[in-house]
């Protein structure tokens, strides 16, 4: 079982929308690989990502059809996350499937508390345990050297790139199994972008990653698999090299060569 997550035949309709925004989408997220989703604006790639930790469910009335399987913690079988109902199950799901957003979203608290927040929510109280995790997460997010002297400063005082790495550190402090990135570098400068990309390449050793990106070069640089979406459908999915070198569909080729989108 090398698929960490498996989206099968997913159709998703926003509350009140006349037509589905995603139609019959299938997408595997392989274990310890980076899967990229590309496509023009409005193609549904963020919508798909937001279905994978069911963050859509914060707003009522959306309609799911299909299956999104997530490998169980004991690795013996899959659970369809669309069958989860109780709030406790949702919380557990979101701890296992972390998410990084388009803009850095530091919480209005100190750097230390930002990272410790998820652990505190799940009931960890011991200062020493928290300290270990905070330090380790900051190391993993390549931020430790920059912030080790000011862990008790407000996190909103960091630069944009640092804030985004803080958000990644905050997500990995919970030891998720999958991390979803929703255009994580769209608000960052090129140098910060590069730092984030390098980090994502390293994170794949421990986590399975799915990333939505606007930037085709980014997808080509960091991903193992790529899915191209257009108008709510998965046009083509395959190894990144294949998608970019010899796409089998005309639409994919047009998009990659910059003819539209």
């Amino acid at each position, binding site marked *: 079982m090398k698929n960490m997550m498996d989206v099968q035949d997913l159709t998703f309709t926003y509350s009140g929308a006349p037509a589905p925004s995603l139609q019959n989408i299938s997408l595997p997220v392989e274990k310890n690989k980076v899967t990229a989703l590309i496509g023009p604006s409005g193609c549904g790639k963020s919508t798909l990502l937001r279905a994978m930790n069911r963050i859509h469910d914060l707003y009522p009335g959306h309609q799911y059809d299909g299956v999104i399987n997530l490998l169980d913690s004991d690795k013996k079988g899959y659970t369809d996350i669309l069958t989860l109902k109780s*709030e406790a199950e949702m919380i557990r799901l979101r701890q296992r499937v972390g998410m990084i*957003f388009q803009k850095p*979203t530091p*919480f209005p*608290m100190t750097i230390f508390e930002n990272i410790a927040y*998820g652990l505190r929510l799940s009931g960890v109280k011991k200062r020493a345990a928290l300290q270990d995790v905070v330090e380790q997460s900051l190391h993993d997010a390549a931020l430790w050297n920059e912030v080790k002297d000011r862990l008790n400063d407000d996190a909103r005082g960091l630069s944009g790139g640092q804030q985004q790495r803080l958000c990644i550190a*905050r997500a990995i402090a919970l030891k998720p199994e999958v991390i979803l990135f929703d255009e994580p570098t769209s608000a960052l400068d090129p140098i910060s972008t590069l730092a984030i990309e390098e980090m994502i390449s390293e994170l794949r050793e421990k986590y399975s990653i799915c990333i939505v990106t606007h930037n085709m070069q980014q997808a080509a640089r960091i991903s193992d698999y790529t899915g191209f979406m257009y108008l709510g459908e998965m046009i083509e999915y395959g190894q990144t090299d294949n998608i970019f070198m010899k796409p089998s569909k005309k639409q994919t080729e047009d998009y990659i060569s910059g003819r539209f989108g």
Partner: protein
Amino acid sequence: MELIFKKLAQISASLLFVILAATTIVLYLSAKPAIQEFGAGFLFESRWGVEETKNVSEVVPNQELVVDGEDADDFMEDEDDFIDDEDFVTDDDTESETNDSEIIYGALVPIIGTIFSTLIAMLFSIPIAMGIAVFLSEIASATLAKPISIAIELLASIPSIIYGMWGLFYFGPFIADIFGGNTVSLLVAGLVLGVMVIPFMAALSRDAIGTVPDMLKESAYAMGATKLEVIKDVVFPYAKSGIIGSIILSFGRALGETMAVAFVIGGVYQFVGKVTDPTNSIPVVLANSFAESSGLSLSVLFYLALVLFVMSFMVIVVAKHYLLRRK
């Protein structure tokens, strides 16, 4: 064109300082005779309009003339008594200059009344207004939030005199039934003030909470937070300065409120033993006494107004410095 626009904006902004300075100077100049007469002792003197002869024999505090009113009608009579009293005192004021007696004015009772009625209002309104704001922005569905928001804005725009009348004829007796005591009292005044500022505070706090980015809330949910945790750890801290701002504005409004309080505080110069006793507040004293004041008694009112001015000013300054600076 560009230049004219800039100049106009500049003039509008500097007008602010002119108004502020003019108000302060007028207040101070008009209050000067009273300040010279009574000095800082004015702030700690609890008697008001009491004649004191140099060879002090017996001072009859005029508030004893006011009998506790059990219902609204009684109170109206009391109020009349009280005003007659005041007339008598001010008439006396001019005559007494030849005598060896003087009239003592002290602001302590209205100062205490103002502070406590405002504090009661805040204690009462803050939790309710926060509840409304959170409900509207985080919990209620859009179809529910809209009519409630409109209702809140309507309530916030009701003239305060209407709250005063409602407080006197309905709310006061209602409170008196529950807590005992008078239908006009410090407690009723505080609660009416509270009711009055709730929609105001709730609307402003809701707007402050509305500035919290959805993405920030989503990232807290994505960490496995529940709604309560998101509100407590992310929404409130993020919107803190806006919420504190709404509280300060409401506090200032309650502090200076005249009509609503004039109806329900009782208007007597008397310390409160319990919260259900009637007392007085600065704006009410001012509103009730200007018509029949002249000379020193008029100056005293300006002194009192200056005290209120400084109090409001200090509240804002202190709040800004201590609450908003910690970021």
